[in-house]
């Protein structure tokens, strides 16, 4: 057998019946002969008559034909069929010859036969990919991890699966187990796209193609514990290397006299603002100068401690805490609070007590809650709680 461009001459003729479009061949009556030299070649005779076709491999003489195609070798025949070799070049070089009515090859045959495609492997299904997950599991990356997640993959090739990681092992079972930390629902074709890299995960998630019920962090982590899925017939590509680094920096900032007063105030459980001598606005936290008036502000007043909420951010997205690097517990809220006694320009932003989040609204009255021991730091003020 001689394979070129991933296929054989035989396959091109063998697939003709399934590529035939009878509705296009109603008033056609032709006989086309094909002769291909060299290894993998041979002779074929195609008959198309009144909406029916027959193709046969022949030994000996092709007999009378409306047109006959001669190809020097299998590479030429396959290359021209797949447009990998320009037919005009092959005709010019003499590797391809046509006798009889050449126009029917150019005009008629492309109409009555769908173009030949090189057979690919059977398309991979979501089910195949999930089934191989246990083999792709990386115990070294999942040390100490105990996680159960589920896929609900709808449509052809899909199914419902639960993947459990525990004690350095991975188990894949059919069905949705109730205690999974997260369930990811999507069409099976979306899953295949994500796994084979033809679809971008963020885009799929953003555009609603993937639904996540449960722990989003767990869903994002699932890929970490497995080798990437590689389709069995994937061509070898050059590996792209990347270097990984973790930068961790100890930082230390001087407060200066103005912010020093602020932190000293926190130690005494007081919220101190400084007052601009020109525009009389209260600045909290205190600032080195009034930015509007370009003057220093040396007069300090205590604000609040109570106030009302003017706006707030209820945060669901778990970002790292910049003070510790640990992932923040969500949801949490940062609220802007007009403290009693403050000038109207300026609110004070701080967190709201977690238990109070369900009844937090614009206008809520709040008061500060302090740490048991205050030392003049970020941690002295715990949060504000709702009092109405």
């Amino acid at each position, binding site marked *: 057998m001689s394979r070129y461009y991933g296929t054989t001459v035989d396959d091109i003729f063998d697939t003709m019946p399934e590529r035939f479009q009878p509705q296009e061949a109603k008033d056609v009556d032709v006989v086309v002969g094909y002769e291909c030299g060299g290894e993998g070649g041979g002779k074929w005779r195609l008959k198309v008559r009144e909406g029916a076709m027959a193709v046969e491999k022949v030994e000996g003489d092709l007999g009378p034909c409306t047109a006959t195609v001669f190809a020097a070798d299998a590479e030429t025949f396959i290359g021209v069929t797949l447009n990998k070799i320009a037919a005009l070049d092959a005709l010019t070089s003499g590797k391809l010859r046509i006798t009889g009515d050449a126009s029917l090859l150019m005009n008629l045959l492309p109409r009555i036969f769908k173009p030949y495609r090189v057979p690919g492997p059977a398309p991979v299904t979501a089910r195949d990919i999930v089934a191989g997950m246990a083999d792709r599991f990386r115990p070294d990356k999942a040390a100490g991890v105990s996680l159960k997640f589920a896929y609900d993959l709808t449509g052809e090739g899909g199914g419902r699966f639960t993947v459990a990681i525990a004690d350095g092992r991975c188990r894949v079972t059919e069905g949705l187990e109730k205690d999974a930390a997260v369930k990811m629902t999507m069409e099976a074709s979306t899953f295949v796209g994500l796994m084979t890299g033809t679809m*971008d995960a*963020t*885009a799929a*998630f*953003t*555009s*609603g193609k993937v*639904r*996540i019920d449960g722990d*989003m962090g767990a869903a994002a982590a699932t890929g970490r514990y497995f080798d990437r899925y590689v389709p069995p017939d994937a061509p070898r590509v050059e590996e*792209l290397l*990347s270097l990984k680094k973790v*930068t961790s920096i100890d*930082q230390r*900032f001087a*407060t200066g006299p103005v*912010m020093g007063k*602020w932190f000293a105030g926190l130690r005494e459980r007081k919220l101190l603002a400084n007052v601009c001598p020109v525009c009389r606005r209260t*600045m*909290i*936290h205190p*600032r080195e100068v009034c*930015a*509007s008036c370009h003057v220093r502000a040396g007069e300090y007043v205590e604000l609040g401690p109570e106030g009302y909420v*003017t*706006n*707030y*951010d*209820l*945060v*669901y*997205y778990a*970002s*790292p*805490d*910049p*003070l510790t690097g640990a992932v923040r517990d969500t949801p949490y809220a*940062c609220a*802007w609070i*007009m403290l009693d006694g*403050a*000038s*109207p*320009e*300026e*609110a*004070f*932003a*701080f*967190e709201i007590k977690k238990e109070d989040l369900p009844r937090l609204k*614009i206008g809520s009255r709040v008061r500060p809650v302090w740490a048991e021991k205050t030392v003049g730091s*970020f941690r002295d003020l715990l949060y504000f709680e709702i009092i109405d």
Partner: protein
Amino acid sequence: MQKHRKNRNVAIIGIGQTALSSHKEDQNQVEMVAEAVRNALEDAGKTIDDIDCVVHGNMELFEMQFQPDMWHALGCGSYGKEEYRITTGGTVGATLVCASDNLVASGLYDTVLCIGFEKLQEGNTTGGITNMADPLWFRNLQTGALTSTTAMELIQKFGKERVLRAAMKYRIMMDKHAMLNPRAHRRLGLEYDQMETLMETSPQLVGELRLIHMCSQSDGACAMILTSEDRVREGTAKPPVWIRDHETSHREENMSNLYGARKPKSTHRDCAERLFARNGITDPLGYFDVFEMYDPSAFWAVDWLGEFLLLEGDEHLRLLEAGEFDLDGKLPVNPSGGVIASNPIGATAMLRIAEAALQIRGDAGGHQIKKEVRHALASGFGGSLWTVLMILEKEPNW
């Protein structure tokens, strides 16, 4: 002091971009920057020998690579040339063009190459933005650039249903524009009939702000070449695009006074008022043919359209609802798909100017506005609400 008095006029004569995508693992930073520079030089019909000075910028905290201009010298072509480095947060791309304009307008250099880039996948964006906040106070509270306080204010003013629909209308409009721009990063193929579903199913990030509303994190670079009017008169490869004027507005460093009992004027409105007054533009909506706006989220975009265009009441919502910001509307906004579609932060604000300039040249390709574009507006946003606004013109008409 008379502000922004130019010694001579300045035009953009070369524009280069890389494709914008979520990962560029086949290029390092130097190679990515070099691709944008090569594209800009080719676009201008110039060589690196024609460049007198290089201005380079991004946000160092995102990749945690300090002085990337040293590492990038080969990619920038800056070896042996004068070089400046600029970093002003999200606005950096716009500030790079403002600074380059100033350098040429002053007469110090004839031809300046500016480069903005970012490879957000090489670091941690939210972590970087959070560490931008005052380390003595507020860093403990900040969540990157994720906030829904503007959504909250809009809802208080115009009602929840209307505001949520306006934000989705804007978001889907941006996706429709991005689908026409092969360089855009996120091209989701959204349709307006998905509005209700997306409003419910897209994951909540902060309050009403959902993932679908927020800009992407992208890798990419943009480079532009600016030159003096004399040099332009010697001939250019592509039609020159004139930088008429620009303005920067910012607040004091603190975020806390944004939501006091008395609301301060937004930096967007402040910037627009000063820039338009100086240039005698009384009807920005009527004057400009395109607006490339730095739109990090759909709610901010909806709000800022009103602020930048100095509109009152619900006029910006009405224009949006009526499709007047669509590609074939009265004032097309972000034909490129905007920041929501592609956001390589250090390049993002420069891309607004680059895309606006391409529209004036008639060179934008699939997302070119059908009617003639003569006057363009481009904005940058970042830092503690820094806003940069730039006016581009087809002819030096001022």
